[in-house]
């Protein structure tokens, strides 16, 4: 088992480099559900732009760290995957 953090930094849009806060709009996967690498995990909003966050690996969504409508700082982990 390996833990993979869902790193918000990895999805930061090029034209929002001066911004360092975002909001999680929607989670599409429940905690405990299994996901395949590339599945859309959640939608985040940075500077009016909506971004789909794909699963960085295949595994189980162990925990959601930033809930819907909650804010996060650039680089915060949005949640945690456990891979086989």
């Amino acid at each position, binding site marked *: 088992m390996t833990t993979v953090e869902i790193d918000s930094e990895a999805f930061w849009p090029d034209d929002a480099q001066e911004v360092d806060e975002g909001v999680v709009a929607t989670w599409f996967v429940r905690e405990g559900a299994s996901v395949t690498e590339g599945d859309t995990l959640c939608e985040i909003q*940075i500077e*009016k732009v909506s971004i789909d966050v794909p699963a960085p690996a295949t595994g189980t969504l162990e925990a959601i760290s930033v809930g819907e409508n909650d*804010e996060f700082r650039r680089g915060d982990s949005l949640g945690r995957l456990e891979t086989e």
Partner: protein
Amino acid sequence: MVGHNTLQQMYKEMVTARYYEERLQEEYLEGKQPAFDISAGPIPGELHLAAGHEASGAGVCAHLRDSDTVTAPHRPHHVAISKGVDLERMTAEIFGRETGLSKGKGGHMHLYDPEVNFACSGIIAQGCPPAVGAALTAKKRNTDDVAVAFLGEGAISQGAFLESLNLAAVQELPVVFVIEDNDWAISMPKERVTDVEDGSRRAWGFDMHGERVDADDAVTVYEAAEDAIGRARDGNGPSVLEVQVHRRMGHFMGDPESYRPDEDVERAQRRDCITRMETRLREHGFEEADLEGIREGAHERVDEAIEWAKDQPEPEPEATYEDVFTNSPDDWPERPSREVTATDGGEE
């Protein structure tokens, strides 16, 4: 020829409108960051800013008096300011306050100020027929008032616009249709919604005068509008005037504009009608200090209006049921009828 005072007045209106919208933008975004929630903050709902359109409102309205009618679309602030709409009450309306133009019922897309014959419709091109109606009224009452309908270039493919042109032409009505061409109908560039590059040519099919002002320049707009409004006022029928403007913002606040090339945004930012107007003023002998003075005065007025508006009370919920007749006839209100204000034509 545009006179010294007119130049100064137009510049004042333009910088008032620009600063007004900058301030509205700040207020609008309050409570909407980092999450942009359209219903949050002191100004909820949609907000369509007109930054980059100011030359059109100022150049056209310079020829209008209070008794002339203007209808504006969903992007109305610059036109309202140039038409002389009460700035305090307009601001209170946008903040949804009781002392707003419409007691908080209308909002920014639905501004009405009968004192200066100004009205809006938030539906594309739907301000055109009422402008024709105002022109018809002027003709029936034998005044020399005129009507001006403002619309965007996206609206010229709408039936209400084309039908209005025909009715105005066949009835020879004193109305001018001003198309503000900002190149974008939300996400659709002009070339994808019409094969006619010059929207004023729509007029030709109705045997009506049509003219396009290519430069985003208030003085050129002023000169073209002098011609069109003069024609209407002298009983020589309607015209179409298309003015090239620039959309410096998204369609509405919150529009991510991901459909719009960066170069286009930069181009719109570069071609600033206010900078151009300042060049004009300098050519006419205005000093930097004069311009600074005008700007300062405008900013002060805007700041005061916003401060005043934010201080106004919100409407009582019960007001929801006022200003409308419903199926409970017990308390149907008396409607004021509009007094006929005869103008002798010489009034300015």
